[in-house]
């Protein structure tokens, strides 16, 4: 027994030492020597040595690996297993899943009032802003979920439609003076239109090619927005985008304003609350439409397409049209969210529509569990909320974000919610969720 544990310990230490050595090789140059434009050298590069930071980084890798070896990877009873057995079995949560959606919904609806009573009008502002941001990403995630989760089309340029929506509203408002409520449907239609234009030629392609073309398209849109100075303002963006009104009533102080009309005391928080409910409503509509469409022939065709494209074609489903509807609908919701973004910010520039945004939205969908609506909500709260939570770390947070994407994915490759509800079952009974091991992605 003692021999075994001896070996076990030595093995762990050796393995951790190997990890530390590799970390030393990796970090010695990039952390240890910083190439900096020194002020004294006339603009030439000099090297600043920081061996202390390297030692810390290597120690972290060594220590982390040693602990993981001792307690998780090589241990007879991994700590994770012990910890897992302390928690109730996840299966017993399954009935709770039914209630999760209503609970989330109620919580979302009363959230502004909870915040207001807890922090007051002034203090709750930042939390409401965060809630709006998270909800925007939930909506974007749900929109992209139609494309990636249901139809199985890998779209790396979703932010392009978000940008189309935002710029549609901003430009229509700037050149024609249209109000938000006219522009909202127009922005969605325009984005859907772009989805069709883009989708028509490329949807015959295989999955990965589609990914790269959508990525390229996202970049094209951004480059055009950046360089078409006369029309879009280029890198300066568009400012002074009109704020939304409460069905014609402006959120202004004084006569005829929102507070005046409803006999309330004026407060700038009213508009924030209104924006929150607006995006919540838009997100819920997205969800509602998606859930309904899943039960229609077109929705079933999407999911069938995701599972097996060849089988679909041999059953007479028009795959191009099916993909195109998914693409256009996803784009439309992206456009709605985009015009909401424009009206909330009051200022947009191509900076907001970089590839990173697409990656974040895609990560939300995939981490949440493809095709799972509630998974998107959880992933959006975890990722965006966590992202804001780490705001104190400033420059480190994108690094943490990237690492978290890797870690969560390695830990749960199928996403957080990996069971699927069948859209149709035999004998009308409520079907159980299908475990992720039983479903296989096609190559849409």
């Amino acid at each position, binding site marked *: 027994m003692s021999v075994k544990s001896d070996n076990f310990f030595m093995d762990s230490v050796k393995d951790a030492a190997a990890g530390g050595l590799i970390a030393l090789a990796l970090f010695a140059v990039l952390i240890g020597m910083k190439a900096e434009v020194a002020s004294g050298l006339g603009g030439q590069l000099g090297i600043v040595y920081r061996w202390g930071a390297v030692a810390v980084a290597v120690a972290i890798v060594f220590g982390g690996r040693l602990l993981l070896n001792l307690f998780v990877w090589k241990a007879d009873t991994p700590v994770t297993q012990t910890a897992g057995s302390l928690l109730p079995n996840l299966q017993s949560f399954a009935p709770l899943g039914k209630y999760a959606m209503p609970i989330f919904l109620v919580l979302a609806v009363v959230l502004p009032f909870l915040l207001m009573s807890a922090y007051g009008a002034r203090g709750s502002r930042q939390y409401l802003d965060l809630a709006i941001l998270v909800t925007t990403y939930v909506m974007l995630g749900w929109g992209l979920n139609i494309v990636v989760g249901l139809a199985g089309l890998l779209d790396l340029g979703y932010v392009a439609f978000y940008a189309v929506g935002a710029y549609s509203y901003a430009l229509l408002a700037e050149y024609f003076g249209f109000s938000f409520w006219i522009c909202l449907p127009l922005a969605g239609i325009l984005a859907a239109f772009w989805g069709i234009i883009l989708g028509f030629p490329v949807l015959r392609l295989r999955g990965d090619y589609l990914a790269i073309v959508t990525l390229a398209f996202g970049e094209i849109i951004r480059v055009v927005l950046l360089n078409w100075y006369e029309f879009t303002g280029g890198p300066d963006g568009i400012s002074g985008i009109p704020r939304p009104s409460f069905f014609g009533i402006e959120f202004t102080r004084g006569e005829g304003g929102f507070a005046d009309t409803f006999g309330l005391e004026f407060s700038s928080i009213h508009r924030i609350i209104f924006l929150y409910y607006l995006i919540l409503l838009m997100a819920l509509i997205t969800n509602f439409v998606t859930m309904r469409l899943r039960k229609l022939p077109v929705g079933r065709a999407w999911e069938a397409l995701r599972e097996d494209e060849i089988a679909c074609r041999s059953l007479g489903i028009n795959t191009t049209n099916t993909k195109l509807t998914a693409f256009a609908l996803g784009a439309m919701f992206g456009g709605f969210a985009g015009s909401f973004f424009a009206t909330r910010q009051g200022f947009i520039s191509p900076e907001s529509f970089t590839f990173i945004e697409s*990656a974040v939205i895609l990560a939300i969908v995939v981490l949440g569990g493809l095709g799972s609506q509630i998974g998107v909500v959880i992933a959006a709260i975890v990722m965006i909320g966590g992202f804001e939570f780490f705001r104190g770390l400033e420059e480190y947070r994108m690094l943490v974000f990237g690492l978290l994407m890797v870690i969560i994915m390695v830990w749960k490759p199928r996403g957080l919610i990996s069971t699927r509800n069948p859209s149709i079952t035999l004998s009308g009974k409520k079907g159980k969720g299908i475990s992720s091991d039983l479903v296989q992605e096609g190559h849409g």
Partner: protein
Amino acid sequence: MEYFLQQLINGVTLGSIYGLIAIGYTMVYGIIGMINFAHGDIFMVGAFIALIFIVTLGITASLPVALLILALIGVLIVSMALTAAWGWTVERIAYRPLRGSFRLAPLITAIGASIALQNFVQISQGARNKPLQPLISGGFTLTDGGADGSGFIVQLSYTQILIIVVTVALMIGFTLLINKTSLGRAQRACEQDRKMASLLGINVDRTISLTFVMGAGLASVAGLMFLLYYGVIDFYIGFLAGVKAFTAAVLGGIGSLPGAMLGGLLIGLIETFWSGYFSVEYKDVAAFSILAIVLIFMPEGLLGKPEVEKV
């Protein structure tokens, strides 16, 4: 005509750099069928490692030519080794645990790894541009612009010659490696059928790791070339170069090594000619539009094998 010649030279140089990066994409795609999104950032890491060694060793243009060349070869070898270590680590941490998982999972970890690498370099090396004094100056003047000096001066700099020569040499060496050595044979076997290859005694995991190591090594060569050619790098160069190199790989036919090189050259030429004759701002749009057009009419790329879908 002179202008055209100059653009051609510039385009071939740029295309060589893209081609070197594209090989990494195409090999990885060929062997495990995933887009290694972090590859562009590996290229960026390679450029940074080369820069740091050049500055540390105090390599400047004032060194004697023979010494300069020796020093650059030394820098190249060290930075290839270190960049390869980065490539290996990324594969080990982010891709290997997900082997056999579903298709999108490694893509997400690849995007995560790309974001992490970019920000890691941004934090550790700072966000500002890193300018490097030109190391190799001068070149051949092919046309001197006529007797009255009104014509266009076409120049072929030593840096450009170096880039093209190194790329050609690496391509030849690499083709031999793939076609003649047992490692190359193992790679081709894994590409065709991983399960069968492992049944025949090939260590598939090791072969895949080596593929990543080789790809990263080539990317670091590209990084050094980029550094010598442009003389300035920052932590963000990996994204655009990566996307364009991937475009090149797809254009040439993904999975095909000569295709990657050809695609790289074409993308480099398209980009240079577009900026030379039309507009600099929209050069990326041109490259991506070509990609879309090629994919629509020739989905398997220029030199790729048409893929047969099996039920």
